[in-house]
């Protein structure tokens, strides 16, 4: 197998230069973003590499927890920022993403699929949190826009003596489904349209394809579990804040 080092990574810049030249010839105004993006990704990934190396070597449980907490908070902040309809987006995203990701991770540990080691917890938590972040962001945004666009439907149901959960059931289901659509499409096409990153990485690192596939199956199910829990909780909490105790739509 080829040994990968900084030299090979720098050689990879030839591909970036090629992309920039093509973009310039075609007059596509992305040159600056491409250069900034290349430098940022290089610096971020190298920094993460060193951080992970340090955490893996130390095997400190506290460092593992700290890394997971930082990932969750940054992810929740990003998801919350995309909620244009309410200021509580961050809090909702944080609770739902933490629950979705931690319940899934805990189950995997309890079921003996993984052990509490940095090399398992950190990459898996990263995948769980980034997928949960997308699910939460989409669900939050969809709830807000759908409730405002369908006020008549909601108030008709309230006027027929329904409570807020019953009055928003259709909108809730649609929003949760929208939050899950990305993982559902992924599950339908995985292995056919694209080989997922974790699996590709393992194969590149020399693992047998069959072993890589087995890991990927576990990862896929784990993502489905985390995304489902996150979308359900985000949807429920997001809808609740539009109603008060008197079953009045105050959004």
């Amino acid at each position, binding site marked *: 197998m080829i040994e990968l080092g900084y030299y090979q990574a720098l050689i990879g810049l030839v591909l970036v230069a090629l992309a920039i030249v093509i973009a310039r010839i075609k007059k596509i105004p992305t040159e600056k973003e491409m250069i900034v993006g290349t430098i940022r990704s290089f610096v971020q990934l190298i920094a993460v590499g060193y951080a992970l190396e340090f955490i893996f070597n130390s095997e400190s449980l506290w460092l593992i927890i700290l890394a997971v907490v930082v990932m969750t908070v940054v992810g929740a902040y990003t998801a919350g920022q995309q909620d244009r309809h309410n200021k509580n987006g961050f809090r909702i995203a944080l609770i739902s993403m933490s629950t979705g990701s931690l319940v899934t991770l805990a189950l995997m540990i309890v079921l003996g699929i993984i052990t509490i080691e940095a090399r398992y917890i950190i990459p898996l938590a990263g995948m769980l949190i980034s997928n949960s972040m997308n699910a939460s962001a989409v669900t939050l945004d969809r709830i807000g826009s759908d409730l405002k666009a369908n006020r*008549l439907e909601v108030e*008709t149901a309230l006027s*027929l003596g329904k409570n807020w959960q019953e009055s928003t059931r259709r909108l809730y289901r649609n929003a949760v489904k929208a939050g899950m659509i990305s993982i559902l499409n992924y599950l339908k096409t995985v292995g056919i349209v694209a080989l997922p990153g974790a699996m590709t990485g393992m194969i590149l690192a020399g693992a047998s394809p069959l072993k890589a596939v087995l890991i990927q199956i576990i990862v896929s199910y784990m993502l489905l579990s985390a995304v489902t829990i996150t979308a359900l909780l985000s949807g429920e909490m997001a809808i609740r804040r539009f109603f008060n105790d*008197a079953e009045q739509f105050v959004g």
Partner: protein
Amino acid sequence: MSCGNVKVLEARAVSRTIRKKGTELTTVDSIDFSFHTGTVYNLVGPSGAGKTSFLRLLNRLDEPTSGEIFYRDKPLREYPPTGLRKKIAMLFQEPYLFEGSVRDNLNYCCPDKYANNIEFHLERAGLKPDMADKEVSGLSMGEKQRVAIARSLFQEPEIFLLDEPTSALDPTSSRKIEQLILKLSQELCLTAIMVTHNPDQARRLGGETLLLVQGKLIESGQTEQVLTEPSTELGRKYINNELS
């Protein structure tokens, strides 16, 4: 049928203030009024007079900022909101029907309660009994409004709040809805409180009329009297179309 003219709903010094674009706006201003069984009430007034805002307080879709509303001598806030809204039903300007058939919509409030009685309820709302299994997407606006009325009647309300239910209808359908409201009010002793922009419609419905201007109750009494011999300057301006 004698409805006994019993007081069912009472507003005492009811006001509502909202915040709009950074400024406070009083949409309902110190209204005192009692509504009685089996009577039709017209809420009239120029645009922005607070008619809909007042109506929405009556089944607690919104909350008064001050004052209190009583249903059967008990404050609205002492009733569970879901139960209260079954007794004080509301019909909106544009009827919203849930996806599915007419039957699905009628069953929405209380599934199975009247499962064998759908046709009776349709006829009572002036619809053909064989419409029960028709998809609501194929109905005309007038039919939709009637289905919405039939659906609300399933709740067995005592009070029916109607927010300009005929504004989207042609004159013929509009008259039919008016006749239906009158009939239901008499037959079921329903108290109907209807927002209307149209003084002629208020005259056809008769009953009592409340004139609201800038959130305040300016005039109230027998419809003919309020709309022909108002006792206030604002009332006279309203009937002379001098209020925007």
